[in-house]
């Protein structure tokens, strides 16, 4: 009986864990991402420059309520990742520099905002909704995706992201 209850407790615990990390969906597509976009100051960022880092690439818009709601947790995620090589590249979906600058002043994201006024990367990355997020491992491959907002600084997500870091930095 003791063993049965232990087994049940383990089962409940493991299924709870599965639900908790279920926000991030393992990526099964064939996307080989490339990205080259300017930030708000005009500096061009190339995804290749972030090789050997874990990268959260997110597509967002100022008119998207869940995008706005989750941004503070993305700021906290930056801190929680600590020494793990990690970057957030948040790509604005087709809005103007002026619109995004006003938004940034208000919401104060502490990560890199990239501009894609033409929507070229949005099409290349097959993004049809916002927020759409891609987790890229140190190997340069997309490992997880997420549609919709989440609390990015949850222990489960932080742990999942750290596992994608280069072996010596995990």
């Amino acid at each position: 009986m003791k063993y049965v209850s232990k087994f049940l407790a383990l089962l409940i615990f493991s299924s709870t864990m599965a639900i908790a990390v279920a926000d991030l969906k393992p990526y099964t597509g064939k996307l080989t991402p490339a990205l080259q976009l300017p930030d708000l100051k005009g500096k061009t960022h190339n995804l290749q420059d972030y090789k050997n880092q874990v990268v959260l690439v997110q597509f967002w818009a100022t008119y998207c309520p869940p995008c706005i709601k989750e941004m503070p947790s993305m700021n906290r995620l930056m801190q929680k990742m600590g020494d793990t090589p990690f970057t957030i590249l948040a790509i604005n979906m087709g809005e103007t520099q002026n619109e995004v600058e006003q938004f940034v002043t208000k919401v104060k994201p502490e990560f890199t905002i990239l501009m894609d006024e033409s929507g070229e990367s949005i099409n290349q990355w097959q993004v049809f909704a916002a927020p759409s997020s891609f987790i890229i491992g140190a190997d340069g491959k997309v490992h997880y995706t997420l549609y919709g907002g989440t609390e990015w600084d949850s222990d489960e997500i932080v742990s999942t992201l750290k596992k994608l870091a280069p072996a010596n930095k995990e």
Partner: protein
Amino acid sequence: MTTFHFSSLTKQISHSLIAFVLLTMSSTNLANELETLTMADGTDVDIRLFSSEGDTLLLGFACDAGAGIHEEETAASLSEDGVEVWMPDMLSSYMLPKIKSSVKQIPTEDVVHLIETAIKRTGKKIYLIASGPDTNLLLRGIREWESRHPGDPGLAGAILMFPRLNKTAPEPGQKPLYTDAVGTTKLPLLLLEGERTPNRWGIKTLAAALHQGGSPVFTKLIPDVRGYFFKRDNANEPEETVTQQLPGLIKASLFYLKRASQ
């Protein structure tokens, strides 16, 4: 020159008259007729009719009862401009809550029945209009109508405003999966989408999927507005402006659909 001096009583009467006229004006229903149609399963559906002399009839699936003042204003304006409008109240008829998923419970048969009735009674060219997930109900109805009336030009086109036709939640990095009705019709379709909604980025993909069935598909992005702009309580200036111009936008859409069906 004659000068009129109002006595106190005259003033009171005139004030009462003004108040009565204003009250009457504000409570006047913009719809000029209300009719009930019985569906195949015996359900009675109330339809608000905005009659017109023109040869075009717009059948709007205002499944949230269509009671929004802007929808009524638009329908009234269109009818004054030669487009007859029918607005069936599907949700109330089936006692369904005003939530997105309710539309799934509305029988396809009802759409077919309404199209057939509209054609039979008026002989006008019928165009359909719906927004959001209600557009799937339209496509279901069109598919069924086309299978029963192959080659019949009575149904001439459909306007899909902010179509939400995803079968499942969109997955980043994957092509969207659409509902079964997408790409199964030949009817000319016109898609309207707000520029300030992420769905605008999927409009080309959706148009291509709809075209698979043979439909000529037109798309129009409306600058500076969000989806459902005409239903929003917090509408901004561009959204208010476009809402006021909605009859013109619909008439322009009908023009393109008419041209495609000729």
